[in-house]
């Protein structure tokens, strides 16, 4: 400024500017105090309480919605650690805009779907966010000075570092040297934390020296010698350890902060003026404490469904144990079994049973073995040769047992030849190659492809179809179903295979589960049909409200 100092002209200019600014402010936020007061809810509707169903990290301040609020008004929720802190202005403010999102109904996860929720505003108070725990000590100029004093850093180096600490140029605009310096600074930032660790006695002196050496070394990564490189990598590990420790400590501190008692005032504001909720002319201070709840109420529908369905399944398994003759409907593919074996007998050719890739633990394989027992029994009855191809040794062993049993039951144990149930190959495509090769040469009259299949399914069923055999397939491998359906005469689709297996084996765990699942399906079918009809009518005629149906299955 010139020597003329503060002239009248300057003063005038400043005054005009100030007026304009003030007026502008008034035009923008010009809400009268009376309007602010009118926006205040009735003190009796204001409540501070722990947020339900949560992990104890939040308090909720709730107050009644006031109609006809002048535009430009919002609410300010002031939070303090003690009631006296309001006097010393040591409080934090949570702003609440008057939008739909601030209504209690906007968060059904914690407050449910009650219609009354639309009449309340809520402010979520997160103590750990408002009063964050103290962070790790920062690197300051004093630290650098100390390093220089200890002769670890040179004067020039300290100047470079101090300059870099003050710089806020974005990374892209730096020169290569400055980039290197910034990397160096990143390492040095660990210094205060390392010293803290040393003070706590957690880091022995030799390791502190190693850390300081690695931190203060300004050489670029690729120019380092072997030992220094190892030091720097070790420093990176130390840095990771420190950060992990810090995070853990911060989390613990946050938990402690969440446990405290907090004091809250509510005010209507236009951004500058505030009108507080009063009672007997005193600003009302609410206090409350967050606590950890014991149950997530919003997961109630999940719990009820899971428990009810589990109960039903377990009950039916028990029932099936007592009465293995539970009804299962006719399954088309199973009847084809007899037909196919009959045809094979007429033609005097053999029957193939091709196992999928599954191991013995898989449901599809267990089902396949159950179907095999039926097929083998029929083949034994009709005196038709049966060939079982396997890829898994355990499945082979089980299959041999099943087929032998079938022959024994048919009264012709001598007709069983274990070589007919053999391992064909051990990998996917060689299995396909081996089995298709045999099919083409031996031309069976009927082929059963049952179990879990992968990409080889197409090769097997295509070759089978082209030899003119009757093919019956069954799998729960969804991707392969289209190929079986187009190339085979009958296909057991997905769960039909399990049902067929349960039907044949009468095993209680299969039967019972199947029946239990049917109850679940019935429930879902009914829920869908009834739900859609009710909702549709409700929307069309608007006489009643059917949203509760959606809320029942809502996942929050």
């Amino acid at each position, binding site marked *: 400024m010139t020597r003329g100092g503060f002239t009248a002209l300057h003063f005038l200019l400043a005054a005009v500017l100030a007026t304009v600014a003030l007026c502008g402010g008034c035009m923008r936020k010009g809400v009268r105090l009376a309007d602010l007061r009118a926006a205040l809810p009735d003190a009796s509707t204001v409540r501070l309480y722990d947020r339900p169903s949560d992990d104890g990290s939040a308090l909720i301040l709730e107050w009644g919605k006031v109609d006809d609020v002048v535009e430009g008004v919002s609410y300010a929720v002031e939070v303090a650690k003690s009631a006296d802190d309001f006097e010393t202005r040591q409080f934090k403010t949570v702003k609440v805009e008057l939008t739909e999102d601030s209504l209690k109904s906007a968060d059904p996860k914690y407050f449910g779907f009650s219609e009354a929720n639309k009449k309340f505003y809520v402010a979520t108070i997160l103590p750990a966010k408002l009063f964050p725990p103290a962070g790790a000590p920062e690197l300051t100029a004093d630290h650098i000075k100390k390093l220089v004093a200890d002769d670890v850093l040179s004067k020039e180096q300290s100047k470079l570092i101090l300059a870099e600490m003050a710089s806020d140029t974005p990374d892209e605009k730096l020169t290569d040297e400055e980039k290197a310096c910034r990397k160096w600074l990143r390492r040095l930032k660990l210094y205060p934390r390392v010293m803290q*660790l040393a003070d706590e006695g*957690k*880091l022995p002196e030799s*390791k502190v020296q190693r850390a300081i050496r690695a931190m203060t070394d300004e050489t670029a990564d690729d120019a380092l010698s072997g030992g220094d490189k190892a030091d720097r990598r*070790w420093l990176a*590990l*130390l840095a990771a*350890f420190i950060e992990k420790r810090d995070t853990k400590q911060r989390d613990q501190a946050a938990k402690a902060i969440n446990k405290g008692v907090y004091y809250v005032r509510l005010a209507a504001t236009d951004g500058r003026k505030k009108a507080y909720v009063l009672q007997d002319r005193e600003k009302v201070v609410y206090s409350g404490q967050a606590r950890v709840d014991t149950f997530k109420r919003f*997961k109630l529908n*999940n719990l009820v*469904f*899971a428990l009810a*369905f*589990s109960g039903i399944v377990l009950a039916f398994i028990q029932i099936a144990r007592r009465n293995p003759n539970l*009804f*299962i*409907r*006719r399954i088309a593919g199973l009847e084809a079994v007899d037909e196919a074996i009959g045809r094979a007998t007429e033609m005097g050719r053999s029957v193939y049973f091709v196992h999928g890739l599954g191991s013995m633990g898989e449901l599809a394989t267990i089902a396949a073995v159950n179907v095999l027992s039926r097929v083998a029994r029929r083949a034994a009855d009709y005196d038709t040769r049966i060939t079982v191809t396997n890829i898994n040794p355990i499945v082979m062993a089980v299959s041999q047992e099943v087929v032998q049993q079938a022959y024994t039951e048919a009264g012709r144990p001598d007709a069983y030849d274990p070589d007919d149930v053999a391992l*064909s*190959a051990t*990998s996917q*495509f*060689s299995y396909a*190659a*081996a089995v298709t*090769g*045999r099919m*083409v*040469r031996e031309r069976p009259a009927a082929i059963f492809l049952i179990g879990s299949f992968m990409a080889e399914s197409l090769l097997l069923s295509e070759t089978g179809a082209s030899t003119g055999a009757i093919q019956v397939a069954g799998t729960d491998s*969804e*991707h392969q*179903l*289209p*190929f079986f*359906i*187009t190339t085979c005469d009958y296909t057991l*689709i997905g*769960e039909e295979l399990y*049902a067929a297996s349960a039907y044949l084996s009468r095993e209680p765990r299969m039967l019972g589960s*199947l*029946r239990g699942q*049917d109850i679940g*399906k*019935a429930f*879902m*079918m009914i*829920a*869908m*049909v009834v*739900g*859609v009809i009710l*909702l*549709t009518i*409700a*929307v*069309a005629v608007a006489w009643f409200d059917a949203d509760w149906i*959606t809320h029942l*299955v*809502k*996942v929050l």
Partner: protein
Amino acid sequence: MTAVDNTQTSSSSRRTIELVVLVGLVTAFGIISALVRFPLEEGEKLRDVIGIIIGAGLTFIFYSFLYRDNPLFKIAENLYVGVALGYGAIITWRQSLRPEVYDPLFRAVTSEAFWHELSYRVVPIVLGILLMTRLSKKHSWLSRYSYGLMVGWGAGMGIFVVTDSYILKQLEGAIRPLQKIVTDPDVAANLSFFDQAWPVVGSLVILIGTVSVLFYFFFSVPHKRLGSGFSRVGISYLMIAFGASFGYTVMGRMSLLIGRVQFLMFEWLKIKQ
């Protein structure tokens, strides 16, 4: 082991022809590779070029399976299994055991870190080692402790998650009013009858489909009369869905072939698009 051996009747003269053709093809492959890829262009590394040629060669060997199963195919197949095995073993070490077991213990920065990590990891490491007992017949019961822990966790967690994400969430998606709700009256007025009817039809199609498919997999009642009609609707839906899946699978398999052809054309032969 038998292969797709369709040429049982082929005579020895046929074998000779096949061998000659094979040698010819291999030579041609070598010559073409050499002509196209050598001398090296600037920026190319010899080992990458050799790699590409080997990759192309392996690709052709695998395709030779289309003509007939042959020893070259079997060699390549087993080599591939081996390479995959080796890769898996190294990745398991580098990406699992080293960062989870070795590093935390043997490269701990302070003694506090070491004891902390050890107390945290000792149980799973022991359980992991117990898992290995599955290989022995006598001690394999020890692995049941590890499997039990994993299987139990998976089952319990699964019940909750499946109920949440696949059942309730899908029911929520299914239970919606048939008509599209148009809140803006101006828009509603401009919609023609068909515009309003389409969403209803669409929602109905979905509702009937889902319910009838569920009914098709319903085994507790006989599918007679009405039920049989309904389950027939269900199977039709399934067939259309399988058709869609079929179409997509064709697309996927063809894409894989296209990918290989692109590799041969662009990387091996260096044809510029």
